[in-house]
């Protein structure tokens, strides 16, 4: 086939342009480590990467809510610890006043202390979180009324801790209302100077204490579950972030090899162009 000098020049110049373009692409891949920047680079790889990224983004967006749920449980646990402490003290008092050794004045003083413990427990069970929402009211806006009657909701809050994974979170005031009732019974018995009733209240206070301990234990279990879920969520986000990165990344060995080849092509094309230019010049 007949090839003119002009055609040779065009071909050599195209070869240089093409080789530089391939070199730039290879250099970019090596320096950024990214092979798929946009859907048209590789639609199916991009779609798979976008799915992975969407899952990671969705998981990441749950983090703040889960942190708040953890804060609430921390506050609940602290409150329930103080409830348990109050019930322990009340049980000591019940045992002390139930054995009939102390006099009427002593029991009246004990009644005042038990009333104080009841107020302390009611305050603890009426605590609110950073948003001003009650910790022990379920979905209601208030856990207890002034008399200590539970007026909160009956359902525990569910949290989404992963894609479709939910756990129950939060302690209801109804779980620990026995503590208030026990303190009320003990205080009433002491105020009435009724030794038998005080004696009977020991069991009630013990049951109230057990309720507080159980509730605290439940809060601890929920905290553990939430911590596990949070770890899973973070791992989930990492997993899909890595999967996304892997799907859009270049294979380092392949990228280095492509880069070396592109470099060689640029050299060859440039030398060829120079030789053709020199041949024309002569």
């Amino acid at each position, binding site marked *: *086939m*007949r*090839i003119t000098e002009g*055609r040779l020049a065009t071909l050599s110049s195209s070869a240089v342009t093409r080789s530089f373009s391939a070199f730039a692409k290879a250099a970019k891949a090596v320096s950024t480590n990214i092979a798929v920047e*946009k859907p048209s680079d590789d639609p199916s790889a991009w779609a798979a990467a976008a799915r992975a990224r969407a899952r990671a983004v969705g998981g990441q967006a*749950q983090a703040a809510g889960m942190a708040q749920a953890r804060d609430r449980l921390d506050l609940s646990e602290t409150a329930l610890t103080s409830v348990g402490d109050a019930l322990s003290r009340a049980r000591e008092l019940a045992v002390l006043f139930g054995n009939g050794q102390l006099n009427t004045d002593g029991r009246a003083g004990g009644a005042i202390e038990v009333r104080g413990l009841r107020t302390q427990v009611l305050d603890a069970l009426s605590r609110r979180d950073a948003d001003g929402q009650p910790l022990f009211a379920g979905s209601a806006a208030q856990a207890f009324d002034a008399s200590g009657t539970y007026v909160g909701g009956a359902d525990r809050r569910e949290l989404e801790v992963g894609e479709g994974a939910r756990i129950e979170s939060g302690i209801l005031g109804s779980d620990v209302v026995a503590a208030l009732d026990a303190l009320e019974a003990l205080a009433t018995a002491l105020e009435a100077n009724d030794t038998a009733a005080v004696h009977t209240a020991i069991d009630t206070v013990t049951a109230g204490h057990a309720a507080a301990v159980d509730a605290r234990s439940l809060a601890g279990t929920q905290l553990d579950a939430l911590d596990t879920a949070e770890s899973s969520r973070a791992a989930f986000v990492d997993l899909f972030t890595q999967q996304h990165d892997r799907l859009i990344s270049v294979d380092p060995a392949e990228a280095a090899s492509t880069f070396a080849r592109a470099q060689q092509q640029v050299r060859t094309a440039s030398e060829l162009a120079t030789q053709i230019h020199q041949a024309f010049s002569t």
Partner: protein
Amino acid sequence: MSTRGLSGLLDLGNSGLRAARAQMSVAGRNITNANTPGYTRQIQLQSSVPYDGVSVGGVLRSDDARLLAREQGADSARAHADDLHAALEPVEAVLNQGDSTLVDAIAALFGGFAGLAAAPTSAPLRSDTVQKAATVATAFRAAAEAVERGRADADRDIAQVATDASRLAAALADINADTLGRDADPAALDERDRISRELSKLVGGSSQVGEDGGLRFILDSGAVLVDGKYAAELRTTPDAANGGHLRMVMVSGNITHDVSTNLTRGRVGGLLEARDRVLASAGERIDQLAYDLATTVNQVHAGNVGLDGVSGRDLFAAPTGVHGAAASFAVSVEVLSDPSALATSAGGGINDNRGALALADLRNAQAAQGRTFTDASIDTLAAFGTEVARASSALDAAEAHSDFLAGLRDARSGVSIEEEMSRLAEMQHAHAAATRFVQAVDETFADFLATI
């Protein structure tokens, strides 16, 4: 055997000189035009005349009508792919711009609903979730705007193509007028071929040279754009049936044809395909997704109750229909101005998070034409990416084909300086030999005169 006198021998030598000069002239023209785009190598015809030396004929262009037709086809395919790719690439860039693509924005919104369920009364989480909804709205509007801008840019380019094509058609007609029925100047024929190729790049079509030497340029619809010295005009006019986008018409005298439907090649073919098929389809898919998302989320949201105890409110401004849903996508004014209006309760009080969970559940709802919203958004962008990749591959293939034909054209019609220099040297020798011959005859003639 013919006999001739000494003066006849002088004529013989003279014909050799004329032939050599003519050959040198053509070689010189070829050399000087070696780098002129579209120049076709010329060949000086000459023939031997028995007993009378050499006769100098016309100048032949080393062209190939069939190759020209193939090049026109390749040019129009390349221009089609080039304009299609150029129209789509910037739109794809916008659809994938930044860290908040439509896909990410939708995923983050549902994650935000799930997060808000953990603390439905949290003011920061509410503001954050409303912000996520606003990001979805921004992504939809940006996508719709990018698609519409792409279509508007295509309109602008189509109008320019019509103007340029009309100008070229008129220029072709002018060349026809100058060359019809005459021995045409090779340079004029080169220009005619060049314009034909340029016209094919713009609007596809093909050219035919008639027996009278005139060129007819015929559009793919069969409509004749240039016939002899007459050229029709291409114009654009808004098409009410296509949202006011431009359609192309051919105006010839008082007759107007709509030629848009059959303009599938050349720049205009690429622009029309980008505007009316790829971008229109992407726009429809984005609108459908926006409509489905807004109506589905609104339906759940309206059944929920806000912190103020009010239900029945939309989270997103209710779309009036599928068409234009993305362009008008927005967070409702009530929610945007007061995040406490974000309805996360199912009616059980402000700490009831079941409404937020119901909103989060929509992440897995097959509510986007049988797919999840995330999948639908990914499929939409991936489908667009596939179109861009296809256009890019088509462009590569068209360029390769075009380069191949350019090689064939060069082999047939290109000027080789080396060849022409050799030819020039050869003709110099021929001219010198003819001169020497004439001198010899002249000397012989002088000797003869001296003897008488």
